[in-house]
């Protein structure tokens, strides 16, 4: 059986050469690796309040691709990883909220000891996901830039190179997309 790093490098190359099948194979690999790493941090990083999504992605990259892949490969990996990071986090949040709402005591929660709404400062990742979908319907590029920057930790320059646009355009798109998302989320 092929070592995972070899497989991922090969798939990345194929995807770059235009193979959508390669991408379809690549996605679940990256997804499960990110998931696995995130779960492991559950044990080790408990005391650290910030578990950086970017750190996870970097670790997944080192694991799946290895250090010796040229930038071309790396940036494509980062694009895929951003998408998967979003999925990992949103899937997890969805499964949690299902568990919570499903319980027999779901109704009485609000009536008993409603201390938990303390943390209303939290921005719900599921709401972000839904809003990003909406945005993508009329601004696909803006939504992708948001995804890469915030979920994947890519810099403007990296995004610019990856999308073959100028860094100034990345900045402009991000700015309007972010303001739109802000209004969308705060209206809820």
């Amino acid at each position, binding site marked *: 059986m092929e070592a995972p790093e070899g497989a991922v490098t090969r798939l990345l190359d194929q995807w770059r050469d235009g193979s959508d099948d390669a991408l379809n194979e690549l996605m679940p690999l990256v997804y499960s690796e990110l998931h696995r790493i995130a779960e492991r941090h559950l044990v080790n990083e408990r005391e650290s309040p910030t578990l950086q999504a970017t750190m996870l992605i970097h670790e997944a990259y080192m694991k799946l691709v290895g250090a010796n892949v040229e930038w071309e490969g790396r940036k494509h990996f980062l694009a895929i990883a951003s998408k998967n990071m979003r999925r990992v986090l949103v899937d997890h949040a969805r499964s949690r909220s299902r568990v919570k709402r499903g319980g027999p005591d779901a109704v009485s929660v609000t009536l008993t*000891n409603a201390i938990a709404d303390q943390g209303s400062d*939290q921005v719900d990742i599921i709401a972000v996901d839904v809003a990003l979908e909406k945005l993508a319907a009329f601004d696909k590029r803006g939504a992708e830039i948001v995804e890469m920057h915030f979920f994947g930790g890519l810099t403007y320059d990296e995004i610019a190179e990856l999308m073959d646009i100028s860094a100034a355009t990345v900045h402009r798109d991000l*700015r309007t997309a972010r303001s739109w998302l802000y209004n969308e989320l705060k209206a809820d």
Partner: protein
Amino acid sequence: MKPERWRRIQLLFERAVELDAASRARYLDEACRGDPHLRDEVNALLRAEDAAGKDEFLDRAVRDAARDFAQKDISAGERFDEYRLVRELGSGGMGAVWLAERADGEYSALVAIKLVRGGFANSEVERRFRVERQILADLAHPNIARLIDGGTADDGMPYIVMEFVDGKPITLWARDAELSLEQRLTLFRTVCDAVQHAHRSLIVHRDLKPPNILVAPDGVPKLVDFGIAKMLAPGPGAFQTVSMVRPMTPWYASPEQIAGDRITVATDVYALGLLLFELLTGRHPFGGDRAAFLEVRRRILEETPPLPSEAAAAFEGRPPGILPRNLKGDLDAIVMRALQRQPEHRYASAAELGEDIRRFIDGEPVLARGPSWAYQASRFARRYTAPVTIAGSAIVLLVALATFWAVRLVDQRDLARSRADRLAQAVAVLAGHDSTPPSQERALDDADALLAAATTLLDNARYPEAEDVARSAVATLGSAVSPSNPVLAHALAVVGRALAQQGRLDDAEPFLVRAFDTLSADDAADPDLLRDARNWLADLLAAAGRSAAADSVRATG
């Protein structure tokens, strides 16, 4: 939206965002001629631009989600010390709340355990958490849910054990029980009393709102989460990281909380005003609609709330037992006084607010309608600076006289005591009514004089009097200086010492711990004050039989 339209909006935004306000309006007038909707959309983006950049909401969303992912699922049956988790009551950004029972079968008490997500950022936060916990644990009142215990689980997650209150939010209770106007007011007074009790111990709730004021099936209201907001983000750092603790939906935030200004007892008075408004009208003064974050902020900071009588008249969902004309006048005035945007224009305390409600119920004239003493005084002060300063010194003089009588006339002990008592009362009344914000210098001057008196009383073994006068010093400083102010720490130390000398060791400890912590963290602290605070804390620990702790405190010297 069509991609083309979005592209158009983007272009207009990019141009407009570079312009100043006046040219921006002109530009948009021109560019959006005939399409006001387009203009609205561009404007909405422009308004959000600044906040969206500063708020870092997307960074937070991803970071919080990643942290959530890392958080182990907690399940029923797990144990925290002697408690076993029964079921989750709810969860939110800061963590989760579980119903739990005693696992050791000692007695069957139900508690609520609050699990704090993410652990402590550093050991300083953890230390403050402990100090706060101790202070809150000392807060005993029948209408305040007791903080029972707290600690850190094996894996470093902090938790707080609280009395479990099986009740409904007060506004729902009032609705479902179809309370009359008078019943609502009586219930509200009880809440004011409980808040005042906590304020006397220098604890501000900071997050008073209907879900935190629960009414049990027997009709007794209980406040939950007292001081918890501060405990979870304690210390001066709490103000720097204000975006973390500032609620996202700020319906129950005061103007000073939204502006990131200092939080005092007046913050709770404002929240009580909101609650009273809701109890009287059935709705929130700034509308219960799903307005956007920025809009709510703006309304709280800029708009004057409607009069309750008018709001109730215009609202079909108002409580059936309430007639708008019964709110007109006195109750309108009381609510508006509590909801003043400037903290110093509100009631000076929860007790004053509760007292005005009592006056209304008993048919006496309410203070809120008369010319506001504080307001008049502040206007007076602006016109006649000199006489008012003298009035300020009068407090100091009274204290000096009280001390004199209390200490010198030892052979007329009883007479001296009664005079000292009366003067102490006069001081307390003056300090309590002087709700114009004292300048920091004046507060410090007054506190110095009070502390000199308190120390003299302490040296003469006049412990209860020393305690009273030192508490006045604390109250004087409370709303004028930062929590880490060394004079405040000194005042807390004297209160603690005076309590300890009266044998009230448990009451004394939080004061001395807080004083010692503040002074020992302050490099510029007066070494004499630090030495006193250290020795007094060590004495207390030794007296409580905790000699190892006493030694380790002494060893810091």
